[in-house]
């Protein structure tokens, strides 16, 4: 399914192809037993319906990011609006994140699209720059059963 992206704001797009199924990829993107392995031991809390709140939670229970679900089509598309809860926090504005999942031959194409209220925000750039490592780890997890070790643990002192 194709939907129009916001054309007004600059976008960062990250694409990877993973030999898995749309259902397994969706599970890996949303369920704690998976996200903990490639997203620094964090998990997401949400009822996963349009309009619901969405939170990303650190291993010690602190809320790292919070926002809401804008669109959700399980195994196909998820759009979130979120902002960061630690400093610099709300001052940096909101980000909009889209996951698009499409079957492609014997693999699944995952597109992660970021749009930021403040495109020149250093903070969001740093977040954006973390995606290649997380996506690589997610791909290794689904294809080999093992995520990349560097992405399994919450950074000390953060």
């Amino acid at each position, binding site marked *: 399914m*194709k939907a129009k992206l916001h054309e007004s704001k600059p976008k960062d797009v990250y694409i990877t192809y*993973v030999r898995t199924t749309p259902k397994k990829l969706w599970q890996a993107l949303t369920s704690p037993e998976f996200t903990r392995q490639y997203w620094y031991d964090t998990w997401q809390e949400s009822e996963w319906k349009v309009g619901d709140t969405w939170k990303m939670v650190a291993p010690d229970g602190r809320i790292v990011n919070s926002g809401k679900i804008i669109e959700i089509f399980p195994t196909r598309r998820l759009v979130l609006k979120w902002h960061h809860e630690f400093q610099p926090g709300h001052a940096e504005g909101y980000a909009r994140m889209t996951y698009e999942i499409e079957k492609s031959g014997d*693999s699944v194409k995952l597109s992660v699209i970021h749009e930021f209220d403040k495109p020149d925000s250093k903070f969001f750039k740093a977040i954006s720059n973390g995606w290649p490592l997380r996506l*690589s780890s997610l791909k290794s997890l689904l294809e*080999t059963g093992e995520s*990349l070790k*560097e992405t399994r643990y919450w950074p000390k002192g953060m």
Partner: protein
Amino acid sequence: MDKPNYIYVTYIRTTPEKLWEALTKGDFSEKYWFGYRMETEWKVGADFRLRAPDGNLDKNWVGKVLEYNPFKRLTYNTFLCTDKTTTANKRNGPTTVTYELEAMGPLVRLRLIHENLIPDDFESDPNTWKGINNGWPAVMSGLKSLLETGQAIVFQK
């Protein structure tokens, strides 16, 4: 955007030596690069060519090796497979492709940097393999799968 470039970064659980081999040998590239084999002597100044799955040398993807620093960095220049006369006329010269490898413990970080592109090289339709923004993620993903699982990815044509 005068001369857009394209960057793709991936982390692969492999060694710099194995990754280098996969990036530089036709026997490997054939598995993850839509069946294309690279042909070159890998010396600065040497010709760089791509042989298509039908056995013919691609007539556009022609260039020279510019830099060759084993297990660390290589650069070659080339026009693109999809170049037609109209596209080639818009260029001020060939594009350049650079692979940068950085060993990070059990991982290697691979940065692909494709430069001196023109807006025509990017494709807004995500449902095609045309456009370097559509092609490179597929090639890089297939490469990572090949090195980590022994099997590249079969893409739908």
